[in-house]
Structure formats: C-alpha cells, structure tokens
C-alpha cells in the first residue's frame, strides 16, 4: 500500500492519506514496516486509536533503554522484565493522556518507565526496609551490542557524552542526581540521607540539571530527536 505521511497537527489522528484518493479518505498503516517510518508523535496518535502495531514499533524503539534503566536500578532481571511490560501496558492504556506541550514522546515514555521502576523500588523498601545503593561508577560499564552497528555506535557516543557530563558535575551535585534518578529517593529522603537541609538538596539538583543541560546541548540527542 502506498502511503503519504504528512506533518500532523497536534491532536489530529487522521494524517495518513492514500495516494490518488480524496484528502479526507484516510487509512491506518497496517504493517510494521509502514509504522516504522512514522515519528513517535504520529505513532502515539495511532495508539490512541488502539493500533497495536504502533505500540510494537514504539516498543522496538524504547523497550531496550527502559529495560536497561530498570536492570541498572533494580538489579533483578525478572523485575526489570515486569517493569517493561507494565510500562508499555500503561502506554497502551493511557496514550490519550500524553500532552505534546509537556515534552517529547520519548521523554514521556521514559517518565512512565522511570516512575514504574521507582514504584518497584519503594515497594521493596517497604517490604525489606533496605535500599539499593545506586552506583555512579556502574553507569556505562558494560554494553550489549545492538543488532544495528551504526545505531550502536551513535548510542555509545551519546552515553559517553552523558557520562562525561555527569563527571563534570561537582561531587555533591552528582550525588543528588544519582540518588534521585537512579536510586529513586525523594528529595526529602536524600536530605535525610545526606544530613543536609532540604533547600540545599533542591539547589544542588537545580544546579546539576542546569549544568547537564548546558554540557549536553541539543546536538547530543539526535538519536532520539531524529524520530
């Protein structure tokens, strides 16, 4: 089937038009290959219409990164697999709750996954009264080479930049980022753990994020923005 992908306006779901037919005659892409050419935003609009193939393509794009984050934070393969399933099931159920003015689809997907991981960490904490200590040095230690070597190289470079950016932070700023993002602690818990005032923790977080954004710059996110 020949399709023409247009730039959709926010909130519209009919943007795929068969060539040679009237403009209001819309079709949904039926194959995985057709969907693979669409942007994240377009896929999400298909997802609102419960097009399962759109979920499969988003899964192909982001499940690895969310699984890796879950493995890093939970250190439990079974729990990480469950987190990935739950996160994408949530995306399937709540696609209509995504708001483009609040950020890119990738950021929303990672946010859904990250919150699910944090839920799991907090459940464990309540159950075991123990906390996994996040390990900044473990960031970027080992890699599973992806099937696509060029994509793998791009991602390697991307991660290297992020690691460098994290290393550029002051130790106390890096600590709060690692404890918050990779350790799943709330800012109140971090203040208690580090024995620092809450305001100090929030200031360190703010300065750390500012520095990360300045260091990373926009060119470092091409592998996500290019979708």
């Amino acid at each position: 089937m020949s399709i023409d992908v247009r730039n959709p306006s926010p909130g519209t779901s009919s943007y795929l038009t068969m060539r040679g037919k009237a403009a209001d005659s819309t079709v949904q892409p039926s194959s995985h290959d057709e969907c693979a050419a669409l942007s994240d935003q377009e896929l999400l609009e298909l997802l609102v219409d419960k097009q399962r193939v759109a979920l499969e393509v988003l899964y192909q794009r982001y499940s690895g990164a969310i699984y890796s984050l879950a493995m890093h934070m939970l250190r439990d393969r079974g729990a990480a697999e469950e987190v990935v399933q739950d996160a994408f099931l949530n995306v399937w159920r709540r696609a209509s709750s995504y708001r483009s003015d609040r950020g890119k689809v990738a950021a929303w997907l990672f946010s859904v996954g990250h919150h699910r991981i944090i839920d799991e960490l907090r459940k464990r904490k309540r159950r075991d009264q123990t906390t996994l200590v996040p390990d900044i040095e473990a960031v970027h230690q080992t890699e599973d080479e992806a099937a696509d070597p060029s994509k793998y190289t791009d991602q390697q470079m991307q991660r290297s930049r992020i690691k460098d950016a994290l290393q550029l932070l002051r130790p106390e700023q890096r600590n709060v980022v690692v404890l918050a993002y990779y350790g799943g602690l709330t800012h109140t818990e971090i203040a208690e753990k580090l024995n620092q005032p809450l305001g100090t923790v929030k200031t360190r977080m703010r300065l750390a994020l500012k520095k990360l954004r300045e260091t990373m710059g926009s060119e470092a996110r091409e592998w996500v923005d290019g979708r």
Partner: protein
Amino acid sequence: MMSCKRVDEFLAPYVLGSLEQRDLSRFNHHVDRCQACAQKVSEAGDTLVDLASAVPQKRVPERVKQQLLARIDRETLRQTEWLSPWLDAVRGLGNRLALHPDIPLALAVVAVLVLTGLWYSRSIQDVDDLKASLEAQMVSAVQSEEELRDMLRQQRDLTHRMATEPDLTIKTLSAAMPTVPISGDENPAGMILVSTRDTTATISAMNLPQLSTDQVYQVWLIKKGGLEITTGTFAVDSAGYGQTDINITSPLEDFIAILITIEKAGASSGRTGESILHADL
C-alpha cells in the same frame, strides 16, 4: 494553586522523579494550566532522556514482548466480554418486544427505567461535583499553609541576618505610586538588605498585587548618571509576598536608587513599567 516560583523550585526534583506525591499533584495542577511552566517542563524533559540512556544497555528478552502483547490481547478480550452480556440483553429485549402482544406497556416500563436511571445518574453527578469542589478547597488550603510556612521561614532568615551581621545595610522600599491594595488597606512595602562583605543583597517585598502568568516583578539598580541595570526578577505568592537575592556588581556607593517594576515574563532588557517600589541608596 502552586505559584510559578514554586514550580521553578520543584522542576529539578520533578525531572529526577524525586518529587513527593503530595507535591506532584499540585505541580501537575499548575503546569496543566500555565503555558510558561509547561514550556520549562518540556525543555527539562531532554535531560530525563539523557539520564535514562546513560546506563549500560541490555537487550530485552524477546519473550517480554510476547507476554506484553498477550496481556493486551487478554485485556481487549475482557473488555469485549464485559460488553457482550449487555449487548445480548438488549438484543433479547428487542426480540421479546417484537413478539409480545402488549408492546406499548413494555415500552412504558423501559421509559420509566431510563428516566429513573437518568435521575440517579444526575444525583451521582451532584455528589461528584461536591467532592471535586471539596478537593479543590483542600488543595487551596494546603497551598496557603505551605506559602505561609515559606514566608515565615524567609522572614526568620532575614531576622537572623539582621541580628547577626553587623555590617548589613538595610533600606526601606516604599510604594512609588498609588496602587490598588490587595490585603486590607496596606500598600506595597519592602526592604533591601545589602551585605558589605560580599556582592549580594536580599530584597523582601509584601502586599504586591498578583500578576498574570506572562508578567514578573523586575529589580533595577539606578547608577549615578541615570543608567538602569537589571538584576533579576521574582514572583509573589497568593498573599503578595516575594523575596529574591540579587548580585551587585559595583560598590553600593555607585548606585543612587533601586526600583521594582512590572515587566513581561522572561525579563525586559530595558525598563518599560512604572516603578512599584523604590528606595534611595
């Protein structure tokens, strides 16, 4: 509702997923209604992507995808199963009506049932509305309490500084033009505390009017000769109180006055608003 200043304070914890649940709902409530803050959240989202992709990459086992798709299929099937008895019942009712000789009576029964259902649905809606209203009042009360706590903390810090820093210069900021008072009959007022040890100063202002989301209060230092230098912006809470720290790049003696004006959000490069508060230095 949470103020824009408060959203700024919570933006980093939000991005890092470390915001407490009670703050998260108020944060979302504000951002859903404030375009400027939504833009800040959107920009900060890139950092979230960076951090998520910084960890060692693992390949997700193929069975996870199969299990996910199976869960989706089961869920879709359950939804269909939930609907089917109702569809069958409607179909059965239709068949019986068609066969029954007393169809008008049956239709009247159905009409009564429908009207009863509508009345019941409306009652439930009223209860929902009341619940939503009480929840909104609760959120507002919690916010006021937090703002009050913030204000007291800031006032305590200022008092502490005044008591312990002997080299502190304090100037009173007074209303520079007639304004509409926002609490009782009180006009805007404030003070500036300048430390002679370093280049910082703290401005504390009260009874300032609430601004729209595309406006901010902006601080200006006036040099000898009339040159106006901007040193920052700030917002006020729902009681009209605001506080900000500024850097002074030259000795205090180089300046003759300080002004606070209302400018467009994001700060103006040159002063456009009339002075709301001022002090001679």
